[in-house]
């Protein structure tokens, strides 16, 4: 099965929407159809990968270290599923809550390009190609962030793009330096060559440099400032995409490059990472606790959740890695659902400040149930997705005897509960406050159709919780393949294949 369509389908859609730049109807339908096809293709790919093992495609028919290789392994397809489902949910949302101004600015084209960038990131097997997809994501997310041109959005957008360009700069430098030293960019080839020179301190330093670049993308302390200053500004649909998907790119790349290729590094680096991830968790959660803006709480909460994922990476065992993999997916679903919920509430009242919001439980009990389930999922109540990943992380901490990390994990879970319930109490329980003139604030009625995307992501998130025993095994299997690189390398470099086979690209 081919992998490239996962990138080409959205790009093709983007081209079509550009050709019909005047016709919003066509653009809407194109993007819906394209994202639906993308989702379908992703599921097919997933079935294929879990059925017959990972897929490899040599783009341009050039053999592995020379050309660019795309690989769809278990990790990739898991990430792809999260991406396409979130994208589908957001697309449904933006179809229901139409925003004419946004769409006339080329929203659909940019979203499709962003989808292509995300898909590319998750299937590429080449360091520089990864950088290119990073750029695609960076540029398209910046455009989405500032597309409506409000002052607030531009301010957030400038912060976002400046700080992320710094990440790109570091990534580019690091990729150049690594190529300068090892003469290859293919991840499989690279990991072989790194393994041969694993004691070279230059490689440790370059790995650290890459880590910083990914850490900025993933919003890890002290590199997270861009996230809380930009996530609360964009339109809701965009915010949901951001919250669901952007930080995961950083974490994914950390797994794919920092762990997969550069392993094992000296122990002090991992210890440092454990410390950093604990600080990230605490710092994010404290930040979330003091915010009074619905979306800023969610933004800071993303930081603390990223700390969880980083912890899983830093702990260096299979359970922890599996926890991080599932955590990314869980968080993608839950956070985008929460952002859409915040959008529904905020749009109805016209403000995201919690002292202006209120009375949503009486207004729509269904929305209340949805929010509460998502919130408990984030907190980690049993049989929600958050629980599955929390248990896995806790177990891996117990296995590594990281008592400080366990303590931090529990404290952060507790604080997460506090701030999520603060939202619940202020937005859903409290009555709608009076406005400045002492009148009852007006709030628009809610469209039930807007709940559909929340329901979709919620269902997927709950599945992670309910099928925790199955999915944890899948995740552990995936994690094993990350630490045990042989299968991947053999597949990509075709080391075990006999000569004489023609280069037919993807293998059936």
């Amino acid at each position, binding site marked *: 099965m*081919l992998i490239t369509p996962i990138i080409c389908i959205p790009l093709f859609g983007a*081209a*079509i*929407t*550009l050709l019909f*730049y005047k016709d919003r109807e066509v653009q809407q339908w194109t993007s819906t159809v394209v994202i639906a096809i993308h989702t379908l293709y992703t599921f097919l790919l997933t079935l294929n990968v879990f059925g017959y093992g990972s897929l490899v*495609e040599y783009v*341009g*028919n050039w053999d592995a270290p020379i050309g660019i290789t795309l690989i769809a392994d278990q990790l990739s397809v898991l990430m792809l599923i999260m991406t396409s489902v979130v994208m589908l949910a957001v697309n449904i949302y933006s179809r229901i809550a139409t925003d004419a101004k946004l769409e006339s600015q080329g929203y659909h084209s940019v979203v499709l390009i962003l989808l292509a960038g995300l898909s590319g990131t998750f299937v590429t097997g080449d360091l520089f190609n990864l950088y290119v997809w990073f750029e695609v994501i960076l540029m398209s997310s910046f455009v989405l962030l500032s597309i409506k041109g409000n002052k607030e959005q531009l301010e957030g957008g400038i912060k976002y793009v400046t700080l992320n360009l710094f990440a790109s700069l570091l990534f580019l430098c690091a990729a150049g330096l690594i190529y300068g030293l090892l003469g290859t960019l293919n991840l499989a080839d690279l990991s072989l060559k790194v393994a041969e020179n694993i004691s070279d301190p230059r490689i440790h330093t370059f790995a650290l440099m890459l880590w910083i670049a990914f850490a900025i993308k993933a919003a890890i302390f002290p590199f997270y400032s861009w996230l809380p200053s930009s996530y609360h500004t964009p339109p809701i649909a965009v915010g949901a995409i951001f919250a669901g998907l952007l930080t995961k790119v950083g974490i994914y790349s950390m797994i794919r490059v920092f762990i997969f290729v550069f392993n094992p590094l000296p122990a002090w680096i991992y210890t440092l990472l454990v410390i950093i991830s604990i600080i990230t968790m605490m710092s994010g959660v404290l930040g979330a606790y003091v915010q009074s803006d619905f979306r800023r709480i969610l933004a800071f909460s993303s930081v603390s959740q990223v700390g969880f994922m980083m912890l899983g990476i830093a702990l260096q065992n299979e359970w922890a890695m599996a926890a991080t993999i599932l955590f990314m997916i869980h968080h993608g679903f839950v956070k985008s659902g929460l952002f859409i919920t915040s959008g529904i509430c905020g749009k109805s009242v016209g403000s995201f400040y919690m002292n202006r919001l209120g009375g949503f439980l009486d207004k729509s009990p269904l929305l209340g149930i949805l929010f509460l389930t998502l919130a408990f999922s984030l907190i980690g109540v049993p049989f929600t997705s958050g629980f599955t990943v929390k248990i896995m992380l806790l177990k891996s901490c117990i296995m590594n005897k990281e008592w400080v990390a366990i303590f931090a994990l529990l404290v952060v879970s507790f604080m997460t509960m506090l701030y999520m319930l603060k939202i619940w109490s202020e937005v859903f329980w409290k009555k709608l406050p009076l406005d400045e003139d002492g009148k009852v604030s007006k709030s628009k009625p809610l469209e039930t159709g807007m709940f559909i995307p929340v329901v979709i992501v919620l269902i997927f998130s709950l599945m992670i919780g309910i099928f925790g025993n199955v999915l944890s095994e899948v995740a552990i299997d995936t994690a094993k393949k990350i630490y045990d690189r042989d299968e991947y390398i053999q597949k990509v470099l075709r080391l075990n294949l006999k000569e004489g086979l023609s280069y037919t690209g993807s293998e059936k």
Partner: protein
Amino acid sequence: MRSIILISITRLMMPMLLMVSLFLLLRGHDAPGGGFIGGLMASAAFCLYGLAFGFQKIKSVLHTDPRVILGLGLLTSLCSGFLGYLMHKPFLTALWFDEGFFNGVINLHVGSPLLFDIGVYLVVVGVVTGIVIAHAED
């Protein structure tokens, strides 16, 4: 306030610059040049035109919106990749007229990389003209 010198120079230079840009595009695979450089050259030509006649006029020269050019460019590059699918080869596989399936039918050293380069060329033109036109639009 239009400078007559600039206008007349532009009238003279514009076709030449565009020709050069096409030349750079076509020879790209074998000598310095290529889609990106060609596209930049062409955009420079359009910018020159804009400086001389006003940037709003660029749209009438292009006969279409820059976004369509962007879309076309993207589509062209993608199509050069899709050709690979048709030949049961991976995406973006270079296919040549004087080789493989077409061998003997047309003996030309032209292949899908050129199509890809044309796409790049179009995108670059679309980007620069788009920015310049948007700036000038009232």
